[in-house]
């Protein structure tokens, strides 16, 4: 599941006498556009911080990637239905946390969705609905409860043959968390990392200022439809725009419900705000799948996590502790004037 979102970051202008400097490095990593921006008073720190962050992100990619033949995840998938595979503490912890979110969301978030990859294609080449028998087989294979984790041996076993796990989506949140951590360890106290639809900030961009973040308009992702200011926070947006399949006149978005193996409807964009990028990532996908009512009800119950949604009608909803200010500069107005009187030509 890809998220095609562009964030706008307003970096408050730091003029000549400003103390903090920043530098942005933009590169393609993990199949997404990464933007790494540390802030520091000492300019020399910035370059080294960026290269440390890039090294770390590449390291995370090598662990999580299901594309690389000899990655651990590929190993797990190859042995589905055969035998458990030993993994590092780091990966074990990550998968375990994914399972926790699956429990919380009753399977709306499910890393075993990867078994159904290929059933739906959103590049325009799909013209008919998938075979119902194939869908049925997929719903059997996509089930997080068949991902068995053995604590003592730190091994992962996919119970059914044909199962597969994909960590690409949550991996970006994890990579962002790690990039932030290594930069903090390197002495960077303020910064922001953006990767695709995931974003994490720490510190402040300027003395007693907050980070200003914009949410892309699903109809025109180069525009912002809303903005807000946060301190150190992760913001993840899951969006159902750009990629879709049109079959029999109906439009199917590219985010699939792991429980039905069918694309979900009703929402165009979900944004989760909470301090952890990895959790925000998982919840953004889960809430999108759960839909407007159930998704929002879940977030409203979770302490410390807020959410903003844009539904398919373009209406914006937010969780209870996230008020919305709509402000208008100009509405569409029509004015009519009639003038009577002698006027010199």
């Amino acid at each position, binding site marked *: 599941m890809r998220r095609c979102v562009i964030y706008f970051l307003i970096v408050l202008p730091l003029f000549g006498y400003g103390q903090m400097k920043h530098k942005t490095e933009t590169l393609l990593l993990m199949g997404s556009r990464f933007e790494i921006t540390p802030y520091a008073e000492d300019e020399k720190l910035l370059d080294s911080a960026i290269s440390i962050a890039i090294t770390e992100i590449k390291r995370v990619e090598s662990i999580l990637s299901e594309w690389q033949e000899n990655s651990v995840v590929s190993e797990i998938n190859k042995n589905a239905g055969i035998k458990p595979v030993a993994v590092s503490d780091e990966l074990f912890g990550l998968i375990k946390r994914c399972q926790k979110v699956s429990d919380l969301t009753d399977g709306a978030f499910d890393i075993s969705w990867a078994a159904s990859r290929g059933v739906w294609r959103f590049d325009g080449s799909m013209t008919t609905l998938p075979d119902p028998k194939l869908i049925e087989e997929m719903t059997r294979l996509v089930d997080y409860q068949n991902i068995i984790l053995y604590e003592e041996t730190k091994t992962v076993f996919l119970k059914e043959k044909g199962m597969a796990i994909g960590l690409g989506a949550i991996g970006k949140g994890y990579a962002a*968390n790690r990039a932030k951590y290594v930069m903090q360890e390197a002495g960077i106290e303020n910064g922001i990392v953006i990767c695709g639809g995931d974003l994490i900030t720490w510190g402040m961009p300027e003395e007693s200022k907050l980070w*200003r973040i914009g949410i892309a308009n699903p109809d025109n992702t180069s525009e912002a439809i809303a903005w807000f200011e946060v301190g150190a926070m992760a913001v993840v947006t899951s969006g159902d725009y750009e990629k879709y399949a049109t079959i029999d006149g109906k439009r199917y978005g590219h985010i699939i419900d792991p429980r039905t193996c069918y694309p979900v409807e009703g929402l165009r964009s979900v944004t989760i705000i909470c301090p952890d990028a990895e959790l925000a990532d998982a919840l953004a996908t889960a809430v999108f799948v759960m839909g407007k009512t159930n998704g929002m009800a*879940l977030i409203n119950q979770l302490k410390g*996590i807020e959410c903003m949604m844009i539904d398919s009608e373009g209406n914006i909803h937010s969780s209870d502790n996230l008020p919305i200010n709509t*402000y208008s500069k100009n509405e569409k107005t029509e004015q009519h*004037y*009639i003038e009577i009187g*002698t*006027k010199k030509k």
Partner: protein
Amino acid sequence: MKYFLLIITLAFSIQAFSQSEPIKVLDEKEVNFMFNYYEQDGNHSPVTGGIGSEKLECVAPQTSINIPFDTVHNISVTLGIDHYTSASCDQIDRFITAASSEYLSSASSKDTRVHCDVSYTYHNPLSNNEKGFMLGYSKEFDVVSLATGINYAISSEDENRQLILKASAYYDTWKLMYPGEIRDGDEYRYGNESDDYDLDTRTTATFTATYSQVLTRNLQVLFTADYVMQRGILHSPFHRVYFNDPLVIIDPDTNSTLAWKTMRAENLPRARNKFPMAMRVSYFVNDFIITRFYYRYYFDDFDMTGHTFSMEIPVKLSSWLSVYPFFRYHEQTASKYFAPFAEHPVDAMWNPTEEFYTSDYDVSALTSRKYGGGFRISPIYGIANMKTKNNTITFKSLEARYAQYNRSDGLEAWYISFGMSFVF
């Protein structure tokens, strides 16, 4: 009993249709999910980098979502039809020679001007600038005008200061309609068809810079300066200028010939540069009264200088009604080409000694006063609403305005205008 069961059944069926799955209610541990997300014993593990729950204890997000209502792209279209009568236009044909008498000019005593402007602005709510362009078209009996312009506005981060730059160009095509008595079909052509008249053009370019600033909560100022460059025909071909030869004029009311005076159509140079600059101050006396002052200084290369001063005091009588009296004073010196009736000199052969001459009092030395008032009805939720399929059209405000205008050369005028605005 039957009905009771029926109602219960209906209630349940409605409930079943409203959502596909029941909403999950979380238990205490789940409510704190974020704080329990990381394993207790995995807290300090180097691979999770200490990003366990102790770091997540820091706050829940406290922010609000800001949604700028307005569209990023703004298009505004203005259409206008002005129907005017003009006593002076009636007089163009007053004197027609025998040769031209069978031709009736289309310059009648009343006419209609149609005009249309389209302007587009682009404003990214996350940036501080706005760009736009404008196209306009206007047509009346003797002038067709095309206009185009671009504008660029930039605001400071706190929106307290703004700079606007504009450039526009106008291209007018004039149908040369001369006073009846000098039309000879040769140098001064006339006729019934459009192409029986010669054409001339005027090009105008305007450059404007405006700077506005909010000084305090109650005080805002604005400074603006323009440069207007005009090239081409600048006089009105049907304006008559009489010279100071001792001959006598025809009585216009009785049309009886008393004697003949040398007469020419107005003639002005084909280039003019104008420099208006103005300042506007808005002072908010309290929540109900605003005072607005405006002063403009103007000078050009026709030797005209002018001062304009105006004051308007909008008073908010209630949440939906405000009234605004206004007053405007203007004075100007004469253009160097102006002279009153029968004062432009001619030589012994009855040829004008000046190259350029006009007797149009608009460019004479004068003072003028305009005063009046208006009211505006604008309730918060509009005067009336009408819901359509997708939208609501609101009749937002109604305003009316009256002004009386007196000029030192004797011109008096008044006007009433009504405005209605709709929002959707």
